């Protein structure tokens, strides 16, 4: 048992951060043991936003359960839906039409940019820079408007379904994405001016929360958190799904392992996403946007696993089927949970004021950690 308040027998102070704290961006509860201003231990407490999504999915059919996963990692809802759709398709052995594959990848990459934009603004706000938040949201709003026009919703789209996508792309989609790319390239310089080149920001991020590649692997970190330590783990490159094998993009790796490296990975990853969109936006193939599937989907008896790269790392969907219309068991391997577990390792020995910078660059989304 640990104490949640007061002073430990060694004379260390215990401080609670959260569950209601503006820097945790959700209901994360951290119990921090402090010696002066030095962190001795960080213990994350979960369970404040547990909605038993995995159990809920067991009572829903294979078409219905996809919408629930939008509520896990709400910033990359499309990519969550994509993972579930891919896993069900694996079981059904359905061939997705090429048009649907391209639409899915385009929407995934737009979601990734939107998610990184929000992270950039929110992380800057956590460490005290308020202006970047509005600049990030300007670009993010443009993406949300594109999503709203094509998918009908801004955040929880539920656009992917087993066999393809729900509707065809909106006729304005191509023109609007192209104008977004122009806008993004025009405004990307502001990001460097406002934050990346700022000396206060650099000093706060450099050599703060250093994560060694060995720790990144042993704690199961994925996504930009691990790539900031030089661990190659991009599922889009290693196990390509949909049309990721045909497009040309780089896996971003930084070797520092500190907060600044994780920051730079995400900033550079946004430009790679723009590169993927530029390659695909002009050559959307003609044809169906949905494969023909049965009215009632039944997966054969067995186990199916599919992993995708979300904005935060590797998301795995594991379905156990007994041959019925609903899954027997569903397990989600969420990237945020592993990335949060490394917080104690990187925060030990650091200062309390730096904890927010470490948490910010881990890019934690609490409903994803606490399903």
């Amino acid at each position, binding site marked *: 048992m640990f104490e949640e308040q007061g002073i430990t027998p060694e004379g260390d102070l215990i401080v609670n951060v959260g569950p209601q704290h503006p820097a945790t961006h959700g209901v994360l509860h951290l119990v921090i043991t402090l010696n002066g201003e030095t962190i001795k231990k960080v213990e994350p407490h979960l369970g404040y936003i547990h909605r038993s999504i995995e159990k809920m999915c067991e009572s*829903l*059919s294979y*078409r*219905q*359960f996809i*919408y*629930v996963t939008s509520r896990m990692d709400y910033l990359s809802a499309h990519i969550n839906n994509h993972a579930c759709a891919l896993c069900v398709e694996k079981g059904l052995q359905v061939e997705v039409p090429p048009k649907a594959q391209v639409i899915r990848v385009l929407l995934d990459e737009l979601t990734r940019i939107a998610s990184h934009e929000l992270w950039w603004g929110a992380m800057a706000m956590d460490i005290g820079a308020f*202006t970047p938040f509005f600049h990030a949201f*300007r670009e993010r*709003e443009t993406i949300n408007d594109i999503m*709203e*026009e*094509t*998918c*009908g*919703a801004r955040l*929880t789209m*539920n656009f992917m*379904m087993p066999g393809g996508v*729900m*509707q065809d792309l*909106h006729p304005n989609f191509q023109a609007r994405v192209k104008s977004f790319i122009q806008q993004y390239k025009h405004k990307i310089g*502001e990001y460097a*001016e*406002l*934050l990346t*080149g*700022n*000396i*206060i920001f650099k000093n706060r991020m450099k050599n703060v929360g250093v994560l060694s590649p060995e720790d990144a692997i042993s704690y199961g970190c994925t996504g930009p958190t691990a790539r900031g330590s030089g661990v190659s783990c991009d599922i889009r490159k290693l196990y390509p799904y949909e049309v990721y094998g045909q497009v040309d993009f780089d896996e971003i790796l930084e070797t520092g392992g500190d907060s600044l490296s994780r920051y730079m990975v995400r900033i550079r990853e946004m430009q790679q996403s723009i590169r993927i969109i530029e390659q695909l936006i002009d050559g959307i193939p003609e044809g169906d946007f949905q494969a023909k599937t049965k009215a009632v989907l039944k997966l054969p008896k067995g186990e199916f696993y599919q992993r995708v790269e979300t904005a935060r790392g590797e998301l795995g969907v594991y379905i156990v089927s007994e041959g019925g219309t609903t899954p027997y068991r569903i397990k989600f391997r969420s990237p945020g949970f592993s990335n949060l577990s490394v917080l104690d390792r990187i925060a030990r020995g650091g200062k309390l004021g730096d904890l927010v910078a470490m948490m910010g660059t881990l890019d934690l989304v609490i409903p994803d950690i606490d399903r």
Partner: protein
Amino acid sequence: MFITKYIQEVWGAVRSLATGLRRTMYYFTHHKEIITQQYPDNRETLVLPERFKGEVIMPHDDKNEHRCTGCTACELACPNGTIKVITKFDIKPEGKKKKAIDKLVYHLELCTMCNLCVQACPSDAIKMAQTFEHSVFDRGLLTKILNNPGSKIMDGVE
């Protein structure tokens, strides 16, 4: 030298701060590039895209006729039990009994706007409306009956 390094660092800090502030001043003097929408004031001019998922409605034509056959495909497709189809039997002039909807009850408070019911409908009887200001003072007002009173099924819809 320590002093030179110190002065260099201070100078670099001032310069990087000025770079950031220049961007702020740019938007301070260029009002036209600001894209903020003044939401409650721009209600008249606010146009939502036609695919926006606000709530489920059942369109009726000017003869108060809808296209719903009461097949309950939407009820089965809904993950939350939002839609309840209550059917009755109409007696046709020829004396034949025909299944028709009595009430299509829609619980807006349970709906997650996932669009699965609209996709499942074989006769395009329901669609998504572009409304979004759903707040009401009484919870009971969120339960809606989608078919108009006295409405009939359109001719030729099976």
